Every structure is written in structure tokens, then in C-alpha cells.
């Protein structure tokens, strides 16, 4: 048996679980309509879940990108201060972020695709809800109990199959979100621990060293300025006067 027939069997099995056996087939129309409404709510909730997952990934990507940009700027600053070693370190860390960013972009694309599909599923179900609401009343009024048996049975099977399909779409989206949530949780932990980069601390170690370099050069500059000033006047006496014995004038000779 081929894949298409087997898939049909699976959908049928899911559908059968949903069907309620009503005494009067006309009652099964109302039951199916109720289920259809519940199904629509479920799909809408799933759309909201997918959208939330998408936003979480977007937030993480923004954080990571911000860190990559910061490292790029630090590399530039380091080169400006002739600290090639620091620039190299900053660029190496930036490169380590790239695969994470690519992974987030892939995940984002997948979630966005799921979102788009579920929105279409919700729209289709809404159309069916509207159509079924009218049709079930027409069928109830038109068919005798005997006719209803087959005609209504067909319609109910058809509508249940649509619900089975929607149910599978929701399950599929949920599975994808679940696996992504696990990865997103791990990413949050990495971001929080600073193992990837320290986003919480405004001054990281590269920045600290850059600041150190610039502080040192400020001191050097000020020192040079002072020396120039002193050099223009009389040489200054620095330190204790020569010839003075250690221990001071009141010391006891050995």
C-alpha cells in the first residue's frame, strides 16, 4: 500500500476518534458544528503560540546581533589603539557568534512558515464554519431521517476530516515550537551566563582592557605635559635630599 493510501488511513483513524455517534444523524450535524467551533479556537490559540515563539527568537537574534556589532566596534577601537591582540580577540568572539545567529535565522524562518500555514488553516476553517452553519440547517430541514443517514453521514465525515487535518497541522506546529523552546531556553541560559558574551555587564573584559589602554595613554600624555612644564623652569628636586642619613637627624649612631 502506498504512502497516500496509508496517510488516508491515518487521517481516517484520527477522524473516527472525533466522530460522535448520535442517535439521530441530524443531531450529529450540531455536534460536528460544535466540534468545528472548538477546532477553530484551538487553531487560533496555536497561531498565537507560534507568534510568541517567533517573537522570542527575534528578541534573541537582536541581542546576539547587538553583541556582534559591539565586538566589531571594539575590534576597530583596539586597532585604533594599536592593540592588534585585542582586535583579534574581539573578532574571534564575533566569529563564534555567527553560527548561533545563522541557527536563529533558520529557526525564525521555520516558525514564520508555520505561522503562515496555520493562519491559512484558521481561515479555511472559518470559511467552513460559516458554510456548515447554513448547510446543517438546510440538511435538517430537507432530509427525512432515512435520507439523512447517508447524506448527513457523508457531510459529517467530510467536515471531520477537515478537523483531523487541522488537528494534525496544530500538532505539527506544537512539536516544532516545543523543540525550539528547548533550544531557546538553552540560548537564554547561555546569554544570561555570559558564556557566549556578557550582555548584562556593560564593561566586559575587552572593553576593560581598551579603557585601560586609553587611561594609560592619558596618564602618559599628562606626564609628558608636566615634564614639558617643568623643563621650561628650574629643575625640580624630587625625593629626599641627598646626603641625609637614613633614620633622620635624631638617630642613634651605630
Amino acid at each position, binding site marked *: *500500500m*502506498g*504512502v*497516500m*493510501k*496509508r*496517510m*488516508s*488511513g*491515518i*487521517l*481516517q*483513524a*484520527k477522524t473516527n476518534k472525533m466522530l460522535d455517534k448520535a442517535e439521530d444523524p441530524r443531531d450529529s450535524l450540531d455536534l460536528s458544528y460544535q466540534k468545528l467551533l472548538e477546532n477553530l479556537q484551538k487553531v487560533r490559540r496555536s497561531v498565537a503560540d507560534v507568534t510568541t515563539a517567533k517573537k522570542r527568537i527575534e528578541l534573541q537574534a537582536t541581542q546576539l546581533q547587538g553583541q556582534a556589532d559591539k565586538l566589531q566596534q571594539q575590534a576597530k577601537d583596539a586597532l585604533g589603539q594599536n592593540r592588534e591582540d585585542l582586535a583579534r580577540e574581539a573578532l574571534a568572539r564575533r566569529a563564534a557568534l555567527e553560527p548561533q545567529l545563522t541557527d536563529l535565522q533558520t529557526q525564525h524562518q521555520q516558525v514564520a*512558515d508555520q505561522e503562515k*500555514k496555520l493562519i*491559512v*488553516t484558521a481561515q*479555511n476553517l472559518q*470559511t*467552513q464554519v460559516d*458554510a*456548515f452553519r447554513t*448547510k446543517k440547517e438546510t440538511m435538517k430541514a430537507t432530509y427525512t431521517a432515512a435520507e439523512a443517514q447517508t447524506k448527513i453521514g*457523508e*457531510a*459529517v*465525515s*467530510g*467536515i471531520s*476530516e*477537515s478537523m483531523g*487535518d487541522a488537528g*494534525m*497541522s496544530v500538532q*505539527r506546529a506544537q512539536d516544532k515550537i516545543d523543540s525550539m523552546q528547548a533550544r531557546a531556553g538553552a540560548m537564554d541560559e547561555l546569554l544570561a551566563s555570559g558564556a557566549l558574551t556578557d550582555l548584562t555587564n556593560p564593561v566586559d573584559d575587552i572593553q576593560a582592557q581598551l579603557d585601560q589602554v586609553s587611561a594609560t595613554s592619558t596618564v602618559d600624555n599628562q606626564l609628558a605635559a608636566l615634564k614639558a612644564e617643568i623643563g621650561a623652569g628650574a629643575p625640580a628636586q624630587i625625593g629626599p635630599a641627598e646626603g641625609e642619613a637614613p633614620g633622620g637627624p635624631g638617630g642613634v649612631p651605630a
Partner: protein
Amino acid sequence: MIVRILGEAQFDVPDTDRSTLDDLEHALNAAVEGNDEAAFASSLAALIDAVRRTGNPLAPDSFTSSDLVVPFSDATLDETKALLKEPGGERA
């Protein structure tokens, strides 16, 4: 015959196009059996394309059961194999 593409819609495919779908499905079956991811993706895409091309989309208020069901258009081989193990998917 009525063919459903999971997650999308139902199509009424003329019986005269049955053999076209059969040929494409053979390739899909072989890909699943042979665990060939690339062949699975290409044969699934070809099958879906044929259903869309030869079939007429059913109106949403037709409420009809399908004779055949095609996996989600972006289904993976692993996902499909897992699905085929579910109740109703027995090879028979």
C-alpha cells in the same frame, strides 16, 4: 477522486490522471523505503505539483472525504516515517 494535501486543501483529480499520480507515488514510496531524504523531497514536490496541476480545488463547503492523502508539502522524511507508524498507517 478526491485528494487532500495535508495542511492545505482538497482537490478533485480526474480518474484519467490516476496513472500520473501512481507513477509519482511509486517514486515517493521508494524514497521512504530507501530512506533517501533528497529523493523524498523531490518526489513529494513532484506529486504535490501534479495534484495541484491536474486537480480542481474543492469549495470549502463541499464537506467530502478524501480517497488519497498527500503529506504536508514541507514534510521531512523522518517526520513522515514517524507518522506512517501511527494507527491507520499500517502497510496492510
